[in-house]
């Protein structure tokens, strides 16, 4: 399972793709199943043309955590939640079951976002 993410150009907010629009909550992200590879890549390709809306879109891998899907990489979970030193900052401030599930997810993998960033440098 995968989701498409980016940072919004105007304010840097972490956003997720959902059928042609960008949403702020990971809980509202469109999930691409293993059979939806072509759709995921098409969405990523389209997102890369939305240069006045978002910066550096990329696909992230997801893992099952309890009853929900969570980003596999810890870095991506932090992006979907906010910093761990201020729990009232970032998306986690709103709370709820999905936020809690993300906070307790335990997958691990290198983040494609970071790898891409280092390559670009």
């Amino acid at each position: 399972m995968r989701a498409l993410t980016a940072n919004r150009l105007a304010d840097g907010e972490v956003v997720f793709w959902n059928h042609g629009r960008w949403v702020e909550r990971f809980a509202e992200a469109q999930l691409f199943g293993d059979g939806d590879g072509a759709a995921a890549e098409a969405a990523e390709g389209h997102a890369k043309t939305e240069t006045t809306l978002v910066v550096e879109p990329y696909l992230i891998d997801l893992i099952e955590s309890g009853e929900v899907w969570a980003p596999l990489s810890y870095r991506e979970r932090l992006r979907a939640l906010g910093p761990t030193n201020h729990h009232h900052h970032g998306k986690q401030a709103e709370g709820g079951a999905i936020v809690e599930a993300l906070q307790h997810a335990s997958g691990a993998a290198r983040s494609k976002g970071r790898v891409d960033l280092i390559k670009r440098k």
Partner: protein
Amino acid sequence: MYRYDTIDKEFLADRAAEFRGQVTRRLTGEITEDQFKPLRLMNGLYLQLHAYMLRIAIPYGSLNPTQLRKLAWIARTYDKGYGHFTTRTNLQFHWIKLADAPDILDHLASVDMHAIQTSGNCIRNTTADPWAGATPEEIDDPRVWSEAIRQWSSLHPEFSFLPRKFKIAITASAKDRTAARVHDIGLAIKRNRQGAMGFEVMVGGGLGATPYVGPTIREFLPAARLVSYLEAILRVYNRLGRRDNRTKARIKILVASLGAEEFGRQVEAEWEAMGPGSDLPDTELARIRAAFAPTAFETLPARSAAFEAAKGSDPAFARFVRNNVKPHKIPGYGIVEVSLKAIGETPGDATAEQMEVIADLGERYGQDDIRVTHEQNLVLPHVKLDDLPTVHAALAAAGLATPNINLISDIIACPGLDYCALANARAIPVAQHIAERFRDQDRAELIGELKIKISGCINACGHHHVGHIGILGVDKKGEEFYQLTLGGSGAEDASVGKVLGPALPANRVAEAIDTMVEVYLAQRQDGERFLDTLRRTGAAPFKEAVYADVH
């Protein structure tokens, strides 16, 4: 404090207006992200994990109360009510919106501040001794020379596109509070046998993936020749520095590959060919020096009855004085270190309210002078001993009187993976766990000076290589692990720490530090700091204790 003149002010206003136009063009799609990125970075604006980060220059770590109040106002208006002081003595805001950045630059310009040269391959903000103009150890005021460097280097066309970024530090006494030897250029103000003032010039220090302690290429440079000599160094670097490989582009790699002697020879040849033409005229130096003339210190007895009485009656004040108040060159005054390392809080962070408290104290009791240290603390450099009980009470009420300067909980930590797009692992929670573990102030004082420095990646913004104990966050298949290094120092006895052993999971780091502290306490001899004991015994007993349960 140096005041900007009309030309400086007009320049800052123009620069902010220029950036406003660039932001507008980016938002409307007239320019691409690839075109815009170098422009925003030239104005200190990075895109990080959750938002944009704006890094604001605090030249040589020197602020006045008006400026600090403005930073507090920006924190409250445009950020989430706090800012993060960095190891480069700058301030970062981590929740900035691109569309707000031009307005913020306008507000900064209104108090002679900006974000120029806080990013990019240029000469960055000079680090200076935060006790400048206050410590009796000082040979000359390093702010004078730092300001001269600021004026010479700001947007210098020849040095705006160096192979990589370039950092200079100036230490002004035998005790180095700037980590000079791990800067691209470290300058130590000295007097020669004839009593003339000058600089020891160290070049090619640095941290990151390949740490070096910078070798001395000139034992004594006459002070008046500073700018031309710096220019000669930069010219050799600009000519020979690697531009084909970013990881080998810093001057430390050039100096190491040529050898300090050959690098120094080429600098001397360039310098000789240049002549003194680019040195500062004496009149200009005098003009800058006048801006740092000491404000009127009162003639006071060395002993303050109010101060002594408070020490006798208030153990918390006495502890604060022991750890956070340092001798001043003028009788009856003290240097007050304000710790931004409250136990359990984020190292280097200050809330808008705390910034305002410090600004008020600087104005009422501190001659309008506030400093930022590379160890992520603040300093009120000129406080009357008579006023210290009042200042301490105000700091305590604002959560700013943690008496831990140079102790185990005075930890440097970069923002790490909680904020930084480049980080491998978090640094802040590791610092918080360690500080919590050593919350007992009596034990912390018993342990004495112990510098822990934490970086979330090999770029080493948290100076882990020069921590007595360094902690580096590494990524093991996406999991946070922490590699410990031992024996580093960023002071006058500079050294690069050595890796202790295999990286540890996050939940074992504080315990490992505690284990090493116990080894130190068991082995130390009279007067030894942790670093002294370690240098005497070697790392073996520490390694054995930390990894005992692995065998």
